[in-house]
């Protein structure tokens, strides 16, 4: 018996295949994973922040929440704000390119043919990104292996493939493309459930149409049509029963139909992607995820905040342009609100089969490719860590003493039990991982 007949006998046709073929852990023993789960989410928003409205003045547990970080106040005790941390990767590419593509890789870009707004042209980075590194590590062990390992969600990420638009890398010269469209992400995660539903929505009409056409045909010509209409019935029965979702911890979120991947829909798209992200964590499809808002040099026009200007253009304005300044604060606060939505979801969901909430098992990092938009600096890169998943000492702001961001990347690896000596460019790893305990 071949695989296809076997599946047929199980009542599964190729429509349910994507789910089945991707689910090696579906029937695995639930108890085999006894050590606490650890998950990592990297959320990216572009074009630098407004330092004065972002960074807390006070170092330590009683750090204050300025306007941009205000939405994160409820998570104060689970937050770690890292100050004085810099992306010191040099070499080819303008600051936007290095800011983005060296952010998670900590290594130089190859010389190449993409010319930015300054410096020399460059290509892709020379190494793997930390999210993929940690995911590979999880996937290498039976106890932490999941169906997908890592998932990459995008909100308003354009179709271009260049060092401004990619932050995750499988390895040197190997960019990872995020799902820009929640419907694509849905298909990848849950198979053709939505397509089946669409087909089901026209089956009643189809059945009556088959009857109408058959009635108009002479008796002797109806045979093939009758055979065909039986297939419509078959489809109705089979599609009604979405058995491929039966073994999931939770059903996929209900996606509203027809949301187009466009600027104006970013608020809805953002929520859909976050819902899918959390849902895939509950179902343990992956332990690592990225959530990328637009791209470095992203030009979102946030008209839902009454802002008609494009984000990157605004970020070039000098600080004394108060209008631009205010708008940038609103833009960055909006990102913080989206982050708060994610955190709230994680916090309010009990960790399946383990103690605490999902946020207790997850570390979410909110970051940016630049310290500040109008100076294009790679110093003081925003790194806000939230959640207890990595065993860091949370609920404080910390002065990192002019550290390279490679050290943070290293401490992430160490926290999951993967004690790398260096990550990215070794010379930027001096002094080893940051001590976050």
């Amino acid at each position, binding site marked *: 018996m071949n695989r296809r007949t076997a599946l047929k006998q199980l009542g599964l*046709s*190729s*429509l349910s295949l994507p789910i089945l073929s991707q689910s090696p852990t579906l029937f695995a023993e639930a108890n085999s994973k006894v050590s606490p789960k650890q998950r990592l989410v990297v959320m990216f928003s572009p074009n630098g922040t407004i330092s004065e409205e972002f960074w807390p003045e006070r170092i330590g547990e009683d750090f204050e929440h300025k306007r941009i970080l205000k939405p994160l106040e409820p998570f104060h005790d689970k937050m770690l704000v890292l100050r004085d941390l810099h992306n010191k990767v040099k070499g080819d590419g303008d600051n936007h390119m290095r800011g983005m593509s060296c952010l998670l890789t900590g290594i130089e870009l*190859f*010389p*190449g*043919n*993409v*010319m*930015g*707004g300054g410096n020399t*042209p460059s*290509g*892709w980075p020379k190494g793997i990104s930390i999210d993929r590194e940690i995911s590979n590590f999880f996937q290498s062990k039976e106890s932490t292996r999941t169906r997908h390992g890592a998932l990459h969600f995008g909100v308003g990420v354009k*179709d*271009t*493939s*260049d*060092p401004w638009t990619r932050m995750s890398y499988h390895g040197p*010269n190997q960019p990872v493309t995020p799902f820009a469209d929640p419907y694509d992400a849905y298909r990848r995660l849950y198979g053709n459930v939505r*397509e089946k539903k*669409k*087909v089901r*929505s*026209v089956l009643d*009409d*189809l059945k009556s*149409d*088959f009857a109408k*056409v*058959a009635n*108009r*045909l*002479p008796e002797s*010509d*109806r045979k*093939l*049509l009758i*055979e*065909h209409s039986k*297939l419509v019935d*078959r*489809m109705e029965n089979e599609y009604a029963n979405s058995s491929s979702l039966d073994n999931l911890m939770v059903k996929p979120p209900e996606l509203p*139909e*027809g949301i*187009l991947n466009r600027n104006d829909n970013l608020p809805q798209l953002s929520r859909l992607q976050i819902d899918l992200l959390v849902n895939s964590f509950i179902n343990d499809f992956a332990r690592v995820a990225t959530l990328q808002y637009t791209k470095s040099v992203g030009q979102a026009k946030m008209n839902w905040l009454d802002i008609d200007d494009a984000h990157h253009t605004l970020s070039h304005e000098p600080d004394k342009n108060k209008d631009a300044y205010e708008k940038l604060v609103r833009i960055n606060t909006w990102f913080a609100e989206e982050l708060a939505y994610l955190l709230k979801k994680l916090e309010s969901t009990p960790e399946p089969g383990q103690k605490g909430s999902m946020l207790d098992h997850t570390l979410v990092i909110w970051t940016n490719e630049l310290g500040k938009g109008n100076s294009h600096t790679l110093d003081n890169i925003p790194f806000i860590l939230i959640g207890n998943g990595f065993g860091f000492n949370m609920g404080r702001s910390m002065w990192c003493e002019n550290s390279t961001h490679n050290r943070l990347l290293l401490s992430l690896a160490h926290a999951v039990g993967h004690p790398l000596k260096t990550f990215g460019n070794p010379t930027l790893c001096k002094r080893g991982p940051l001590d976050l305990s």
Partner: protein
Amino acid sequence: MKISFLWAIFFFFTEFGLQGWSSPSLVTGKSLYANQCAECHGERGQGVEDEYSKPLVGDWPLEKIIRYVDKTMPDYDPKLTKGKNAELVSKFIFESFYQKPELFQKDSKVQLSRLTNRQFRQSLADLFSHFEGQPKIQNRVHGLRGKYYNAKGMNKKKTIKHEQIDGKIDFNFKDQAPIQGMDVKKFSIYWEGSIKPRETGWYEFFVQSPNGFSLRINQNDSLPTIDEKVTAGMMREVSAKLFLLGGRPYPLSLEYFKFDDPNASIELKWKTPLGEKEIIPKEFLFTEKVSSSFITQQNLPPDDYSQGFERGIQIDDTWDEAVTFAVLEAAEHAAGKVSRLIRGRENDPDQREKVVAIAEDFVRLAFREKLSQEELEWIVHRKFNPKTPLHTSIEKVVLFTLKSPRFLYPEWQALAKDTKDSSVVASRLALYLWDSLPDMNMHDLIDRGQFIKVSQIEDQAKQMTMDSRAKAKFHDFLLHWLDMNAEELPTKSTQKYPDFSPTLALDLRRSLFRTIEKIVWEKKGHFEDFLRMESFEFNQAIAEYYGMQFPKEKNATDFVSFHSSQIKRQGLHTHPYLLASHSYAEESSPIHRGVFVSRKILGRTLRPPKEAISFSNSDFNPSWTMRQKVSTLTKPANCMSCHDLINSTGFSLEGFDAVGKAREEMNGKPINLMVKYMDEEGNENQFHGPSYLLDQALNSTKPSESFLEDLFKHLAKQPAQSYSNIEIAELSKMIFQRKINLSELYMKLCFLASTEGFSFQR
């Protein structure tokens, strides 16, 4: 009813009428038949399952039947029917049913069938083309239009330096600029145009370059097919696969740029469904850019081919599911197009009206007829709920429409309507000529009442015949007729024929099709011209391989006409591609050639062998000629019933070796081309080589009859007997008398079959 009535007459004559007073020989013949033949052939010659299942009908002359029966029958003991008895029983067979195939014909009428795969894909593509533009090349200049720019900083198109037409994309600029005077370090080139592949199937496209590039094929406004703009100057090859329908043009653009990389080069290659990777040849590229088409990328299970032509008579869950996915793909495509069309004006009531009108047109085109208001209401309007986004509504309409039997069963109206109306004629015409559906122009003619007179419909059919879709379908027929369906090229022993490369085989295949296309479409040739093939289209590689001088002033890849006498070829059957295809890797195959020539060129009937015996070269004395080997292999009497025809025609082509090169000897022995050929009337002739075969074919209506029947089945997906106004004998006479050329014939067959049962207005 018809059949049982005929049988009644037949019985009457045989049982009571003829027996009483006709010649006594018939009586004896009959009893002989009953005793010695009926066991396997059935009492009335109708055949017996598991013995000889087919009816005893055919085109042998009586003399041959006698000879055959005498030598071979009954097969369990050929001694039983000899001499006079063989003659008697043969006469009985010959006179009672052998020449009366109508006795065994089943009642036939047009059968309801679903769209075949080809019809499904073509119909979908044309349906969407109504809204996105029918891709049509008006200006047939080959190559791609190249625009050469100097780049500066982020601006890759700083200044245009040069424009030219490039026949193919195969450049190695090394560390130089493409054009003198251009910036060596930073430049870009934008190529644009169309690609028109000949065959249908999966194509793989490859771009190889150390520089930045992005390729778009059949994608005007979405993601590039290949996106490789970022590079560190390392040489790489990137590929993408696309399913394409042959005979249709698709837009192609290739953006290419160098930015400080040490070297610059670029190649654009493809691997056609035949599997040879090559630089895309100039003949498939055009400078004119056409609209993109919706081509479903869904694999569909193969259609029924049991009768020698594709028919949509199988319905099962595999097919249903494949079609469902193709339809979902189409629905998504439509939703995407509509959302781009109305972007930013989604809530404008005018836009809603516009989209509803699009939906109505879509349904009308797909269902091939105008719908009543009531039908439009439940099929279209009800799906446009004010709360649903417009692109979601259109998605639903497309999903329903393309899954509906009204779309999937193209001839259901023809069967449902007692009086055939203009829409039945129009949908049949599009189906038979194009494997597609009527375009809006035909719908408009019907609306205006201008599709009811003979002249009106004939004019339309003529126009449609000149459309590239008709040519594409005719090409598809040729693939079947020439036994070239298998998606593979002939391969030869590398020891014996080291220079017969896959590239040469591909060139030869193109040569054959170019030659035929020229005869049929450019020169408006007749069937006779097709068989005679007075000139052959060869490029330099072919010409040189077959020992001809290629004109120096021509480009090596250009195809040039060579007169058949100049290259010592005598007819279609001597085209080197056909000879090489009907050969083994090391040797010619007189059997394959003989079967092909007998069936297709001479229009003779051959039964499948009772017992399959394969030819194995190593079983024979290596010093023998193929003729000696095949003669020995097929010597047994029951082989000879067919093999005297196969061998005589196959041996006539022994003057060509396994690659179709002319030869005069084999293994040091001269080739003997002298054969005895017995025609369908029992006349025995002496043949001496391929020109005799050609003369034989041109002196009979047999070849055109069988060609016609095959062509008809291919275009209508039903046998000719299902249509009362298709008179094969009469049409083949017209062909024989050169009263109708091939493109007219194609048009006429479609016209006649489409208007079956239609009352023209005078």
